[in-house]
């Protein structure tokens, strides 16, 4: 105890503490710096790759990566994935913290939000003849997907189209005419009502398309309108929304469409998979997965329309982007090119994420898988009726869908009038859209 003078002790502690502090701060400062290019033993580079999906999709993607690494021994790809809903908070937090993955999947709804704010790299310098990415092979409907102005912030990895997924057996049992040929909405709802009545309301003919942007967008496009304008605003007005809400709420009231409680009670599944509805609007590439969850085969029918327009289009299902901050842009571009152009990838993925995006991958997938064949047949059937791919959703568009659901629920529970619902929807769009 007597070794050190009492008055010296605090000083010693203070010195130690400052030393500790300095080290800590130093470490923190280094962590804040720009990521530097670190190359491993033998000149290998490791790309971090983040995507959304389930473990089934992760298996397929890992097979693609094995094939890629075989051809590019100097590049390693490390993956991580998350469910769609938790993917965005994770990605945005990583991006805001200055530590985004090198390569990532981006949904069409987010391309503007992330692309316009410097998160995604402009790959234009890596695209073209003699460069890492060959984009000339993209199918015509996808040529502009991933472009914001003249900046290429993403490359489409697939495309898919909206379909009317339905259980043919349930429709036949009710004596309803299946949507194999184009039909008007009213005619279709008469058929749908037959299914509801046949099952004594245990299974409704169709899930309400008005609860989701997919239904709203398809109908607006059938009227010759757009969901989003080039400038990032809504492409329709109060009157259009009023007409649509009035229509679907009427069909719900008579029983052709399921009520909002059906959706809620099916969570975390879907009314189609819990057997509470016999049809609904869905991306065609989901048909295999949904049939499996439902336990009976679903067919891909044509979406009803009252005009000469089908309303459906080839939607870029998923885009691949590189982070603007990544020090490995060239390697990332090579990997992206492999994913969109290599035939092995198309063979492995099938239609898990949709139809292949390029002519170089077309026809590579085995048609032995019945779900793949179903999607291919449907895409061929609607190919002539597809309209041009619309501009990407506005900055904040993904969130507006959440509010659309909430407003629609209030309407379908009968808690607010159609006029009030329309008012709320447009008021909220002012808050959410940047």
């Amino acid at each position, binding site marked *: 105890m007597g070794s050190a003078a009492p008055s010296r002790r605090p000083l010693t502690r203070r010195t130690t503490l400052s030393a500790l502090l300095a080290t800590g701060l130093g470490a923190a400062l280094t962590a804040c710096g720009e990521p530097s290019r670190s190359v491993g033993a033998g000149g290998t580079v490791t790309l971090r790759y983040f995507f959304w999906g389930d473990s089934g999709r992760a298996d397929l993607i890992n097979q693609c990566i094995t094939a890629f690494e075989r051809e590019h021994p100097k590049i390693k790809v490390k993956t991580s994935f998350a469910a769609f809903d938790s993917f965005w908070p994770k990605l945005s937090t990583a991006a*805001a913290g200055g530590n985004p993955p090198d390569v990532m999947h981006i949904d069409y709804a987010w391309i503007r939000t992330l692309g316009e704010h410097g998160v995604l790299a402009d790959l234009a310098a890596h695209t073209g003849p003699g460069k890492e990415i060959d984009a000339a092979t993209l199918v015509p409907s996808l040529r502009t997907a991933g472009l914001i102005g003249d900046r290429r912030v993403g490359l489409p990895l697939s495309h898919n189209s909206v379909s009317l997924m339905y259980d043919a057996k349930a429709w036949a049992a009710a004596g309803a005419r299946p949507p194999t040929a184009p039909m008007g909405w009213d005619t279709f709802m008469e058929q749908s009502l037959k299914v509801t009545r046949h099952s004594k309301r245990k299974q409704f003919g169709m899930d309400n398309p008005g609860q989701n942007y997919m239904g709203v967008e398809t109908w607006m496009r059938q009227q010759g309108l757009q969901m989003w304008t080039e400038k990032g605003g809504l492409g329709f007005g109060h009157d259009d929304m009023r007409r649509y809400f009035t229509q679907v709420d009427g069909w719900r009231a008579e029983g052709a469409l399921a009520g909002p409680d059906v959706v*809620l009670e099916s969570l975390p599944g879907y009314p189609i998979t819990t057997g509470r509805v016999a049809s609904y609007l869905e991306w065609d590439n989901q048909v295999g997965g949904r049939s499996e969850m439902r336990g009976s085969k679903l067919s891909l029918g044509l979406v009803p329309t009252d005009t000469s327009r089908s309303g459906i289009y080839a939607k870029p299902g998923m885009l691949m982007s590189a982070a603007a901050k990544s020090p490995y842009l060239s390697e990332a571009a090579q990997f992206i090119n492999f994913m969109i152009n290599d035939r092995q990838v198309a063979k492995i993925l099938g239609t898990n994420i949709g139809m292949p995006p390029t002519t170089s991958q077309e026809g590579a997938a085995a048609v032995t898988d019945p779900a793949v064949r179903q999607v291919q047949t449907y895409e061929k059937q609607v190919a002539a009726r597809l309209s041009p791919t619309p501009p990407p959703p506005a900055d904040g568009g993904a969130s507006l869908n959440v509010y659309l659901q909430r407003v629609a629920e209030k309407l379908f529970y009968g808690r607010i009038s159609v006029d009030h619902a329309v008012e709320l929807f447009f008021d909220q769009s002012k808050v959410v859209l940047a």
Partner: protein
Amino acid sequence: MASTTTTDAAIPRARRGGAPSTAPAPKRRRTNDRAAYVFLTPWMLGAAVLTLAPMLFSLYMSFTDYNLFDAPRWIGLANYKRILFDDPEVRDTVGVTLLYVVVATPLKLIAALGVALLLHTRRKGRNFYRAAFYMPSLIGASVGAAIVWRLLFSTGSVVDRFLGAFGVHTGGWISNPDWSLMSLVALSIWQFGAPMVIFLAALQQIPRDLYEAAEIDGAGPWRRFLSVTVPMLSPVIFFNLVLEMVHAFQMFNSAFVLSNGTGGPAGSTHVYSMYLYELGFNDFRMGYAAALTWVLLLVVGIVTAVLFKTSGRWVHYAGEEK
């Protein structure tokens, strides 16, 4: 060694008394203060870096338009103006949140006090019951419990069938906008463990002679509860009330899980904190979300202040003359 012990003892004595100290050498005390500050440094550093700095930054953000990726842009009071006048969802979520606070807080406290009174009596297995009743509070805030709650309150579930047996047909509470908030209230009541433990401790502090005196004066159990237990417990009731009210204002987890993140049905469980989460982490409108947070802090602060102001009328501190 000897010198340190004397100073250590001198400081608390001087502080406790609050009287101007005459004896201890100021120099030695300063040395000791310094030692105290050195030991406190990690904590103070933590508070400054992890609490104070983010708070100040969020206050700054609330005056900006900030989307996480671009630099914040100063917009003055625009966020606050929008919250107060232009956002229909704020109005709705405030309504839902207030309803929840007003219903859930007192019910939870009543449940906690009721069970604490039962457990206060001497009987066999008392400790087992105390642990058993506290258990839900340990797991209560977890996602797992909220999922079980979903199953309990959906259509055709245990609760639905039980009520149905008595002729009460509400359907599933989860999918009924009139009842969904009540399932959240029920979940909150179920987690009464923390206030219960505090009530139990306070009950044991009430002097027995007060009850004896009341009994001699002819007071029955109900009278004794109202005239002895409640006034003697009032400081603790007040403490629990403030704490639980603040918690209720911040409720997020259970609403998020029970509604699958939608705040549904029909926005009936869309509480304020969920809305600010959506704006911040789904819409990347961090500036606006920060402003919403500060409004919440302000409102909770005002309500707490009002409670403190009125507490003088009903909170009785032992030894206090009125």
